[in-house]
């Protein structure tokens, strides 16, 4: 499958701060690509570099097989985006906002097409209301309509479900899936709601402190036969020492203040549980987790653990 975005050795420094460090990834065409990371991990900085809002310190970005800096206009004509919040002109109506960003995208859009876009995000009835009267969810949907108004091939959505209620989140999820399945669009979606990314993404990257932790297809990275077990004990330090001294030490995933995390195959869970009881570790709870969020936490906290130990 061809790549729509190819990023190689991307770096961005803000003075002494290294926001993005040697980041490389590629986004396959026709897929939803999840962009995951904690707050401050470098997601927004990377997305802004993809949209030419921030100039990279070094590295290359190719979109649609073209160098971004050299073919900026040509590329952006085929890209739609929301960056963080969907801030629009509050003193203008939804239709006026949509028309403005449509014209800025360089295409002539009929009034009917604009209304169709608003209908697609459920805002046709409020087309003539000023944006300042909109709820957060409505602004978010209007933001998506402005990103789609010029029928882009690539859609970049930075935290598209921010501030939405559960119904709003479900609506956005369905819209993203509709754009991929029915219209064949490629989407890059960053979100802190990992459970949402799990439901929509085909591939993903997890970054932390500007560096790539892992990249690949969700179903390959996220092995259903594996699980993360969170063990809470009376004294985690003693528990961890006892585990390290035993054959179970290899399963310790990371250090967390309030629990010990173990990465196990499903069939190992009852065996390990039994052994831990026999070791008299003082178990308070034993919780097996299996979601992208757990996987994400295991990677990012493990990274922190490694750094703490190194320091």
């Amino acid at each position, binding site marked *: 499958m061809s790549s729509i975005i190819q990023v190689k050795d991307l770096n961005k420094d803000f003075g002494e701060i290294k926001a993005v460090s040697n980041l490389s990834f590629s986004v396959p065409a026709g897929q939803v690509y999840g962009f995951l990371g904690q707050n401050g991990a470098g997601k927004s900085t990377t997305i*802004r570099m993809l*949209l*030419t*809002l*921030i*100039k990279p310190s070094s590295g290359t970005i190719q979109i649609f097989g073209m160098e971004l800096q050299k073919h*900026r*206009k*040509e590329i*952006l*004509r085929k*890209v739609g*985006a*929301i*960056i*963080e*919040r*969907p*801030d*629009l*002109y*509050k*003193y*203008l109506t939804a239709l*006026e906002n949509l028309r*403005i*960003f449509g*014209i*800025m*995208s*360089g295409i002539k859009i009929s009034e009917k097409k604009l209304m169709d876009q608003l209908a697609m995000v459920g805002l046709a009835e409020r087309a003539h209301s000023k944006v300042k009267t909109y709820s957060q969810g409505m602004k978010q949907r209007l933001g998506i309509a*402005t990103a789609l108004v010029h029928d882009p091939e690539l859609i970049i959505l930075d935290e598209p479900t921010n501030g939405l209620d559960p119904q709003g989140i479900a609506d956005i999820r369905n819209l993203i899936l509709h754009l991929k399945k029915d219209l064949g669009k490629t989407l890059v979606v960053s979100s802190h709601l990992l459970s949402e990314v799990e439901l929509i993404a085909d591939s993903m990257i997890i970054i932390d402190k500007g560096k790539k932790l892992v990249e690949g297809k969700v179903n390959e990275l996220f092995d259903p036969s594996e699980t993360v077990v969170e063990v809470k004990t009376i004294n985690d330090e003693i528990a961890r020492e006892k585990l390290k001294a035993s054959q179970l030490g290899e399963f310790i995933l990371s250090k967390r203040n309030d629990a010990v995390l173990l990465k196990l195959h499903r069939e190992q869970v009852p065996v390990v549980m039994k052994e831990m009881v026999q070791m008299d570790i003082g178990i308070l709870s034993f919780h097996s987790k299996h979601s992208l969020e757990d996987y994400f936490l295991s990677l990012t906290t493990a990274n922190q653990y490694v750094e703490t130990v190194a320091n």
Partner: protein
Amino acid sequence: MWKLLQIELFKIFKRPRTYIAFGAIAAVVFLIQVALKFDGKSYIDLLMSNLKDSFDFNDDFKLDLLNGYLICFVILNTLLIQMPLLVALISGDSIAGEANMGTLRLSLTKPISRTQYMLVKFLASVIYTVALLIWMAVLALFGSMLIFGTNDMVVLRSEGIEQIQSFDVMWRYIAAFGYAAVALTTVSALSFLLSVFAENSIGPIIATMSIVIVFTILSEMNIPIYDQTVKPYLFTSHMVAWKGFFYVKADAEGTTINGSIENLPAIMRSLSILLIYIGLFFGSAVWVFRKKDILT
């Protein structure tokens, strides 16, 4: 380009704050016109207090002086000092306002070059400035002509008074308003430059006014060391050169020569300096903006 300019103008004139400046001008012009309509003679007496020992003006002559042309001159003298603030309200908001609203980042993800974006924004600010001046001209010049009528125009100078015949006045006003447009565009360009560095419009507006006030004070100060070293290079020194269009040459008998301008080269030199400032401010704004990371 034209489409983008239309969008900018649409955004400017859809905002209620845009009309504050138009309202302020209307209010000041109206107050001056009302005051002079009912107590114009006292104003003329005050104006000519320095000349009463040399000349004996009767009341009818004084009332003849109080015509639309003179009133407009008085209004221009008063308002052109305050206009920079009104201009900065929009220019200072051009980029900083978009950054503050969060719309800057969305706009710059569109297939428009940053230079083009800046050019359109600046042109829109210039059009707003010109619109303000046209509004002022309509109220101050044509309004005053309607209320006070027309007659020969008298210009008071430190050396005495100059009388410009009524048919010789209108083209001077057109030139003066044109010059004022360039002068205010200089302020607009300064405010526009400062707007690039800020993330809300208050900063650039206050900074512009502070610079204009400090420069104006320096321009007006009578300190010999500044006369040659500082004053010629301050844009504020050249902003008042519009008055030069109302200073006329006189023949050997002291009669003013119709269609003449006392010192046209000085006006043209001031105009050139203002244009250089505009180029410098706008060029710097584009240079900075092209390199800027958009983090808002």
